[in-house]
């Protein structure tokens, strides 16, 4: 059979994308469908599984810890986002102009981003330790605290120090995104504003922020999604404690699926998580489209 040139091109193109499509189908589309399917079942890690309809979903509304985890995850997201943004913006402004050695500073601020969150969490757990940690050592040496602080052991401080560690780890990422946005603003706009006698804050609110709306929205969504999905820092730094006050949604899914072996229930929670994320992504698309 002789294929025409166009037909051959079509076939070749399909062959090129086939491996990718196969991968995405097997490791993404099928699991996605399976998540839905599993969520309607009592599906233990081993042993018999049984169809239970919507029971898993009904269970969710009664699961005190699940509701607590939802609340915690959103609270965490709301608390961690502003510092990342404010510091990210300050850093981006500081490294914006190409003054000598500025590349080194950009690199330094970005460095923690390439370290794994798991490893950085270990590092911070150790620095925050009450006996062997450097923070307590410094605070005690300078007489800033009367006795060693149990940073990760108290519900009110645990959240704060985890946020501190996450800001250190991720702010460089936001900085680079915002930097790209800042550098896209033509210098002439600022110059003419200066001629008109505009001060720093006028320029910030009338030029910088409005022109960076899309960049900010993008960085915001990425940061929010990352926070909603967080797991490593809570699993490693507090193991969900104290008083189970730092169990994120993904953490609770992990526990139910792989420690309590209730995979069907875990799947139902995943579906809810998925819905939240789809909503967030939808919001992102909406915010970004509006401008065009």
């Amino acid at each position: 059979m002789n294929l025409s040139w166009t037909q051959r091109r079509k076939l070749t193109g399909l062959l090129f994308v086939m491996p990718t499509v196969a991968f995405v189908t097997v490791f993404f589309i099928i699991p996605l469908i399976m998540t839905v399917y599993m969520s309607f079942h009592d599906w233990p890690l081993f042993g018999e599984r049984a169809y239970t309809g919507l029971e898993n979903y009904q269970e969710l509304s009664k699961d005190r810890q699940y509701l607590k985890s939802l609340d915690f995850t959103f609270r965490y997201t709301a608390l961690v986002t502003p510092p990342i943004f404010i510091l990210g913006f300050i850093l981006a402004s500081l490294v914006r102009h190409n003054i000598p050695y500025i590349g080194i500073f950009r690199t330094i601020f970005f460095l923690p981003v390439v370290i794994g969150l798991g490893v950085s969490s270990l590092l911070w757990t150790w620095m925050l330790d009450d006996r062997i940690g450097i923070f307590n050592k410094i605070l005690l040496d300078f007489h800033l605290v009367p006795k060693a602080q149990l940073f990760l052991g108290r519900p009110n401080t645990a959240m704060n120090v985890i946020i501190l560690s996450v800001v250190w780890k991720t702010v460089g990422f936001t900085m680079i995104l915002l930097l790209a946005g800042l550098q896209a603003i033509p210098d002439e706009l600022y110059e003419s504003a200066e001629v008109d006698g505009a001060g720093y804050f006028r320029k910030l609110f009338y030029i910088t922020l409005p022109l960076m709306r899309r960049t900010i929205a993008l960085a915001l969504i990425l940061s929010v999604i990352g926070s909603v999905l967080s797991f490593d820092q809570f699993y490693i730094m507090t193991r969900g404690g104290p008083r189970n006050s730092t169990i994120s949604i993904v953490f609770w899914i992990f526990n139910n699926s792989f420690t309590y072996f209730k995979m069907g229930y875990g799947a139902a929670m995943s579906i809810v998580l998925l819905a939240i994320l789809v909503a967030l992504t939808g919001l992102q698309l909406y915010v970004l489209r509006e401008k065009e």
Partner: protein
Amino acid sequence: MTSRKLILLVLAIVLVLGSLPASAQDEEINMTMWVRSIPFQTQALVDEWNASNDSQIELTVIPSAEFVTKMGAAIAAGEPPDIASIDLIYTPAFAAAGQLVDITDFVKELPYADTLTPAHMALGMYEGRNYAVPTGVDGSFIVYNIDLFEQAGLDPDNPPTTWDEMLDAMRAIDALGDEVYGYWFSMNCAGCNAFTFLPFIWASGGDVLSDDYAEATITSDPIVRDALAFYNTIWEEGLVPEGASIDNGSNFVSAFTGGNIGMAGMGNFAIPLFTNDHPDLNFDVFHIPGKEGGAASFGGGDVIAIASGSQHVEEAWRFIEWTMSDEAQIEIYAANGQIPVRLELVNNPYFEGDERQMTAASALAVGFTPYTTVYNDLFNDPNGPWLEMLQVAILDGDIDGAIELGQERFTQIMEG
């Protein structure tokens, strides 16, 4: 990689079968065994077995906190070990899921079956059949520092027998200095407190679970509340170091070896460590008392079982049976300071004259272990309701809120 191994294995078997007259004795048996990272004499047992038997056992130590997850995953993957030394409280869950070999007929043949520690045998039963036998027994009790007792003017020969007496002793010891404390608990360690705090409730005639293990009795049994208040007092009065509130068990044993802690909940497993590594530590033990007296202990430790799917059930049992023999129990267990799993062997040459070992071993007579398939989710899970309830009640002082929360989450888990 696995499939290539499989092909090689098949090839090897075909070759062996083809060239030799099939003979079970000649075929080398290799078994795998898992144990959690608890300092029983498992490695010594396996070494001794491997040295004197044709069949060989490969021992893998799994971090305690991950044992259930790993075992579950291995079973789900169809690759469980032949032999598993399991924390006894998980046996009902594994047996109920059909993951262990029924060894009732083997157990019947044992002449000493009746003297095996009852708590472990009970936990190894499921629907009237045996699935596991004891391999490491461990009761809980209180250790106390004799030197500190004397310094505080307390009589070390008459240790406390009620909660109030314990509190008085703690206060007296705590008054000895800034760095001296009356007590130690690891309040961020779920399992540690099931082991050492539950017996306070039991010794007073109370429990957190009903007799048939069908429901939680946290709100209905007033003793639970009293016990939480007792521990809350210890915390509020600063009778424990502040770090105890966040200790996840890493200092459960070592805190007491510092010599500045008056009393602490402990288990048999720690005694050899104290006597060998800390010869200067002048300590003795007493039973965990009830509110107004009485005594109780958590029958902890490991049972040994054969996993479903093992190709070497007979040989695995031969090993298990040997671990309970006089030879192994006395020359490996007792010689290393570990309590024998057969109660009649507690009177052995190695333990004679050591009051502490005898008292500790006698704790097993009052030993008790909850029988529930959701033990891990209730008590041992660091995110479970047990630890959360303890922390809210003892550290935050919100006892009413804690028992209400505990009752609700216990019930939810038990109803599945």
